[in-house]
């Protein structure tokens, strides 16, 4: 039977891929996508918890709805910023964002 632990392992792997992508990709949009992957790993967790641990309550599903909405707001701000930066520098490569010491 596929149980909670399978989902937890799956989401941990997904989360790890997200972290790896965030650290290794140099394109600002790809980095944002990796962050989304991390948040979606969390969503998988919450929905699985809702099914296996707290059946009858909707706390897990509610949590994932909030995560989705907040992530959308975050990405909107992020993409708007990327557009604004692109207008000035004609690049979305993080290696070129070196005005500040990273």
């Amino acid at each position, binding site marked *: 039977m596929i149980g*909670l632990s399978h989902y*937890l392992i799956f*989401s941990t792997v997904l*989360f790890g891929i*997200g*972290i790896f992508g*965030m650290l290794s990709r140099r394109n*600002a949009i790809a*980095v*944002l996508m990796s*962050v989304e992957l*991390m*948040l979606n*790993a*969390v969503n998988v*967790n*919450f929905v699985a*918890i809702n099914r296996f*641990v*707290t059946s009858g309550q909707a*706390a*897990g599903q*509610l*949590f994932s709805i*909030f*995560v989705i909405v*907040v*992530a959308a*707001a*975050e990405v909107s*701000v*992020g993409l708007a*910023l*990327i557009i*604004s*930066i692109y207008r*000035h*520098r004609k690049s979305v490569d993080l290696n070129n*964002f070196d*005005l*500040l*010491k*990273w």
Partner: protein
Amino acid sequence: MEISLLGTEILLATLGFLALVTGLLPGRAKSITGSMSLAGLLLILVYTIAHFGEEASLFQGIYLVDNFAAYFKMLFLTATLLVSLGAGRYLERFENKKSEFYSLMVFATLGMVIMASAGDFITLYVGLELMTVSFYILTAFLLRDGLSTEAGLKYLVLGAASSAILLFGISLVMAYTGTTVIGATAARLMTEPAVVAGIVLLAAGFAFKISVIPFHMWTPDIYQGAPTPVTNYLSVASKAAAFAAMVRVFMVAVDAAPGLTLSWNLILAILAALTIIVGNLIALVQEDIKRLLAYSSIAQAGYILAGLAAANAYGLKGVLFYALLYVFCNTGAFIIATAVEVDSGSTAIEAFRGLSKRSPALAAIMTICLLSLAGIPPLAGFVGKFYLFAGAIQQGYLWLALIGLIMSMVSVYYYLNVSRVMYIEKAGKQEPVKGSGAFRLALWVCALAAIFLGCYPAPLSNLAQQAIQLFL
């Protein structure tokens, strides 16, 4: 349910929208936004103080109204007011976007208020994100300035990643407890590898928000790139909000868990020691005032974390006391840094040369604020550090208190270095640094608070004592 229990939150949300809407008015009607926001914030602060002492648990425990939350609400509102007042002529750089600036400041405050009152992880998360998303925009507010937008994007990527880490921690804890209510978590926590991993991730997420070493990489960059008033607000208020949430989560859920054997105090104590040492050492070599204050704020977060690691009456009282005096002292220093930046166009420490001749009052207040941050008696910082380190010693972390003491002495060097530049080196210009009445008011409040709290700490100390009563 009485609607007045949520007065602070409702009023803040209304004020934020009003500021946004008045910004759309044509012509000169726009200019009322600033004074309206300040008046509104002052009113809300008075309202919050008047309602101190109310206790209630709303919506089945997901929203808590108690003294602890009320204390932090006062702190956030004070910080917002001082920062908005002190921004002064820097606001001219925002051109026709001033109303958005005020609106976002108010929304960020609302997020912090929700964080301090959250009795549930969902509420906590929503408050946290309301605060940080507002801060992403505020950090990138100077859209034409490459530094500012770059800082905004970096903050967004790292901030979103840290939120994801925090959430992953919450989900692991929730997988074992089956509840999102912080108060109900403690009874069901047990020593399982996944739970421990969850708590560690939770701590890492918070550590990122309060920029504890080794999660501090973002701080200097973002602090340098953001508009100076925003840096100021970021360093005092967002840190205090993260501490408020962290204290509640760790004291209510982790510390009180009977089935969990995890020496989280020790982990936090080690992190605090690392933060104090590294933050102070790197601050020694900074040449930019914003980066200097950024590293100093990392070190200050270490002191406050020491109080949480102690987790006893003295330590927690120290956390609350120090968080508030840090608002006054750091804001004072930042307001002067803002004025000097507007005057000279530079954020280098060099720009402070001869400030004592040009504006003696500013130089004196800057020195008072910095010495208070260093913890020199009879200023407020000394009393705050006394509580924090006394708590650490009581808990058996004598080494932590010693490290804090030694590094405080080291910090005097770089704080006094700024004073040296102001008092000894010669100025290029002679005319005084300009500032409005609001700017002076904010400065005097900061300076007087730093002195008053140092000489007569009893009232605030009692208030902090009442606020932490629910954790003891």
